[in-house]
């Protein structure tokens, strides 16, 4: 009981202090002759360390990071347009050398931006949140990205790059935000139960080597295999994107113009640049959605990579306070 209280009190310290002295403080606290007084003393000093650590420069850095996240949709939309233009130019140039199939054009138009932006989103998502305590939140990143995306669609004239109709884009972004938060919560729940079958699997699941676990052992007693977490994340993300685009099209078209029977294919077709189907919505996917599927896809990849970013090993705490009592 006293050990648990000691650990709980030490968790109140800022991370940089906890990492350095947490084990020693909890050891002294657990072995204290005046536990009540020392507990209050630790709580008081933990709060004091937070106050001492607060600074406007840190606040400014946090605001800059949030602003950077909110700008990501704008940067993505601009980069996507630029790179797809590059793809088209490559397609035009390739005509000089002979007959070119339409599929080749499509591959360039959508493949070039995807080949550049998707890996960049993975790297950025895994690196951006390092050393940022607020990054632990599963709401923060989707919220900032969604706010930035709504900002983009609200820009007069240029906002149509992410959907021709503002209300449709806003509804799709809202659905995307709610879906990604749910995916984040689900991921946390599943990763807490992930079975570790190998060192590589473990590293990908937890972002750290097996030896970095507090007890120095692999968590073999968990129930969900690591690969299944990946599959579930990918499927859940696809479903979220699919639903977001269905919500868009159903909100700007009537029921007969956008029938449910075609709805599941709208997002994947729009993603690869295909207008398809018998309905009005199906035939005008590209004109209506424009770059919305691509920007939301890059935002999704970024967010999933953020959820799975490497994290520092947790602070160890003493298991037995008697070990720390002075000889």
């Amino acid at each position: 009981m006293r050990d648990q209280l000691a650990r709980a009190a030490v968790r109140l310290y800022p991370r940089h202090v906890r990492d350095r002295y947490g084990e020693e403080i909890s050891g002294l606290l657990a072995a204290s002759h005046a536990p009540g007084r020392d507990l209050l003393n630790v709580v008081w000093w933990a709060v004091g360390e937070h106050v001492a650590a607060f600074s406007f420069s840190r606040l400014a850095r946090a605001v800059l990071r949030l602003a950077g996240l909110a700008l990501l949709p704008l940067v993505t939309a601009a980069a996507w347009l630029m790179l797809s233009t590059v793809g088209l130019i490559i397609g035009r140039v390739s005509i000089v050398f002979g007959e070119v199939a339409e599929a080749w054009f499509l591959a360039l138009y959508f493949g070039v931006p995807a080949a550049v932006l998707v890996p960049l989103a993975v790297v950025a998502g895994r690196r951006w949140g390092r050393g940022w305590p607020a990054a632990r939140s599963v709401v923060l990143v989707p919220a900032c990205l969604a706010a930035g995306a709504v900002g983009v669609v609200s820009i007069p004239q240029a906002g149509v790059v992410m959907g021709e109709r503002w209300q449709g884009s806003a509804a799709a972004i809202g659905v995307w935000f709610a879906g990604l938060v749910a995916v984040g919560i689900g991921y946390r729940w599943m990763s807490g139960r992930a079975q570790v079958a190998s060192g590589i699997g473990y590293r990908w699941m937890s972002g750290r080597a097996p030896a970095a676990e507090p007890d120095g052992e692999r968590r073999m007693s968990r129930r969900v295999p690591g690969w299944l977490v990946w599959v579930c994340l990918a499927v859940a993300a696809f479903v979220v994107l699919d639903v977001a685009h269905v919500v868009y099209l159903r909100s700007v078209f009537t029921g007969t113009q956008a029938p449910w029977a075609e709805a599941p294919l709208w997002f994947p077709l729009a993603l690869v640049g295909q207008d398809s189907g018998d309905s009005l919505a199906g035939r005008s996917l590209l004109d209506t959605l424009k770059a919305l599927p691509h920007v939301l896809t890059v935002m999704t990849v970024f967010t999933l990579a953020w959820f799975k970013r490497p994290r520092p090993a947790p602070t160890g705490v003493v298991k037995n306070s008697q070990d720390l009592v002075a000889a």
Partner: protein
Amino acid sequence: MSDLSEPAMLVLISLADGPKHGYAMQDDIAELTGERPGPGTLYGAIRRLEDGGLIVALPERERRKPYELTGAGRRALQAELRRMRELARTGLRRLAVV
């Protein structure tokens, strides 16, 4: 006035005769002052002294991490104790106690 707080001074004095870990410092300070510093007070002082380069952590032994004075810490302690001695002497002279 000195930049060193009272807990920091007590930690430096406790380490003046050799390295100690936290629990031993608590005992030593309790013996010096009659009051045992809480873990928060003690490690608040240790953190500031370590950040200031006045003490340094030694490699952990048997899950306990000892600390020792650095050269700068020893000089700072000497200077502070001399200053306190002069201050005490002046105050006592003015009181006509010495």
